[in-house]
């Protein structure tokens, strides 16, 4: 019913005009093959979002969009508090501020190759990953609250990383408006020994080689050169974020019912931004964002320790840290007028263009670095935000390859051992706690990240800067 209403508006943009309860159009950014392969549920879910109170301009789906819970994964929508807009725990998702950070090392592929195996072994040994792994930090209740308020600032003050890292994290590494008092004791309990752990599933730490540079000027400004070694970390807010979502969802289902908001799926659960529950969730979610950036900051410290022990000439610098499951208050031009919006990005990356005030001085000319993780066997990309993206998608773009098949299908089709062997023939060392987990994350279970990134660039949402290929992958 939705697919037949989809109209192509440009090479990589499609729209569904509002009908029924929709207040704004759905806009899907994708090329024709991605559209042909896209699950129709993506359009239905984006249309449900387009019907929520206070939604502004359009409900967007990114090129890697797939069927999610309530909102599609790869969904972006902005809400205006002054027009009865809502905030949705489902629109942020279960892994609050899950994201990616990229570290440059100052090493070339030649420096690295002889240390590859010991480095892989030491990273796997020192980075707590997978089920049952615990971090070395155990936080007291007071320190937990400090971490939830301070984010990466807290981590740096505890000796994890350097002060100059902070400018290269969204919001300078500390989300304002975090309110630990709205984070339940259950959520804090789940986190108390999980700071500095990678998690499992699609989370990973990769050592990569830059295999292509598309824009030499911006790449230089980002500190990226062909054949350089880069580290990418993909993980989120761990147990705390999962529990915050679990705690607020049923409360928001009830709130929506009381407000007379129709939810075609329960996971669209939301509350007016200007309600007690809306404010409480916002405070708890911001604490979740701080938890995620603190977590990635502690992991960065562990990576630096490993490099300093094995490759002392390495100079590990933070290029940037992005979160791709968030709701953030941002100002955007709507019909030429600036408006304050609560922008939900669920499986979508913020991609602010050049000149945006949120960017540090040394990234003003380039636009925000945008980090797109691929799969174990394929590539990752570093893009830069554009001015056109600011107009077209509230400064947002894709976040990864996006699954093409379910975990069950993947684990039926591939064996973990075969995946590891096949990748080792390609020169990629996989260190995974579990072979079943590796099978579920087999490269073939995902869409082609290159196709997704090319469609993102053609749609004007971000521009390609560099391509990276994996050499070591530590899976949770």
């Amino acid at each position, binding site marked *: 019913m939705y697919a037949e209403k989809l109209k192509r508006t440009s090479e990589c943009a499609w729209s569904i005009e509002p009908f029924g309860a929709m207040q704004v159009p759905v806009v899907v950014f994708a090329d024709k093959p991605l559209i042909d392969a896209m*699950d129709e*549920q993506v359009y239905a879910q984006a249309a449900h979002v387009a019907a929520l109170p206070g939604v502004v301009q359009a409900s967007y789906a990114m090129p890697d969009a*797939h*069927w*999610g*819970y*309530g909102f599609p*994964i790869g969904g972006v929508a902005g809400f205006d508090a002054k027009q009865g807009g809502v905030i949705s725990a489902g629109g942020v*998702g*279960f*892994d609050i501020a899950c994201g990616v950070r990229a570290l440059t090392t100052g090493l070339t592929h030649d420096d690295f190759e002889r240390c590859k195996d010991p480095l892989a072994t030491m990273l796997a040994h020192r980075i707590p990953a*997978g*089920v*049952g*792994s*615990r971090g070395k930090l155990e936080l007291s209740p007071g320190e937990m609250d400090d971490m939830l308020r301070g984010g990466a600032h807290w981590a740096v003050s505890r000796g994890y990383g350097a002060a100059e890292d902070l400018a290269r994290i969204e919001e300078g590494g500390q989300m304002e408006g975090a309110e630990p008092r709205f984070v339940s004791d*259950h959520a804090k*309990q*789940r986190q108390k020994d999980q700071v500095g752990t990678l*998690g*499992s*599933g699609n989370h990973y730490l990769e050592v990569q080689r830059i295999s292509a540079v598309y824009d030499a000027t911006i790449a230089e400004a980002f500190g990226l050169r062909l054949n350089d070694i880069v580290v990418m970390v993909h993980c989120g807010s761990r*147990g705390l974020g*999962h*529990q915050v*979502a*679990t705690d607020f*969802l*049923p409360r928001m*289902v009830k709130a929506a019912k009381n407000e007379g908001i129709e939810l075609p*799926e*329960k*996971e669209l659960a939301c509350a007016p931004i200007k309600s007690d529950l809306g404010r409480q969730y916002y405070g708890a979610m911001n604490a979740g964002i701080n938890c995620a950036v603190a977590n990635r900051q502690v992991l960065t410290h562990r990576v630096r320790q490993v490099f300093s022990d094995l490759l002392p000439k390495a100079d590990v610098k933070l290029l940037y840290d992005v979160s791709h499951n968030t709701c953030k208050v941002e100002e955007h031009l709507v019909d030429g007028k600036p408006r304050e919006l609560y922008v939900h990005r669920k499986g979508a990356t913020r991609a602010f263009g050049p000149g945006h005030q949120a960017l540090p001085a040394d990234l003003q000319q380039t636009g925000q670095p945008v980090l797109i993780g691929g799969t174990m066997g394929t590539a990752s990309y570093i893009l830069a935000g554009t001015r056109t993206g600011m107009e077209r998608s509230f400064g947002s773009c894709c976040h990864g390859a996006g*699954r093409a*098949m*379910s*975990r*069950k*299908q993947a684990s039926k089709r591939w064996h973990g051992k075969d995946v590891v062997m096949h990748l080792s023939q390609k020169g990629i060392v996989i260190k995974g*706690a*579990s*072979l*079943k*987990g590796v099978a*579920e994350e087999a490269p073939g279970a995902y869409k082609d990240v290159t196709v997704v990134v090319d469609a993102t660039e053609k749609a004007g949402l971000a521009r390609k800067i560099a391509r990276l290929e994996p050499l070591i992958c530590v899976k*949770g």
Partner: protein
Amino acid sequence: MTEPHWQHYSHPADMGIRGFGRTREEAFGQTALALTAIVADPSKIEQRTCIEIVCEEDDDEMLLWYWLNAVLYEMATRNMLFARFEVAAVDAGIRATAWGEVVDIARHEPAVEVKAATYADLKVECDSRGRWVAQCVVDV
């Protein structure tokens, strides 16, 4: 009447879990086993200790959702896996006992953590033959 059992089913977003039983409570216990089996093979988990879990909720489907998230909470905070669940109906919901042990990475070879049970495909039903089914999709 079919014996109680569980299964996984494909869902594009993540993984579906489903439990069958002769009562609602038996189906709930089987669904929790299906949840465990995403992480590790239940036959490798020894029943060394037991814990109690109580969930209160009127609506059957919401009760299943609370139950599975309560099991996940216990798994995460106690660092345990459970191999057997005995669930009993009480006035306001359910009271359950779960038997299991602390995660042993070498022996259990845990695959992935489950983040949460979701509302997607959430269903608790009794068919015409009196067989109960309880299911939902979990976020991995």
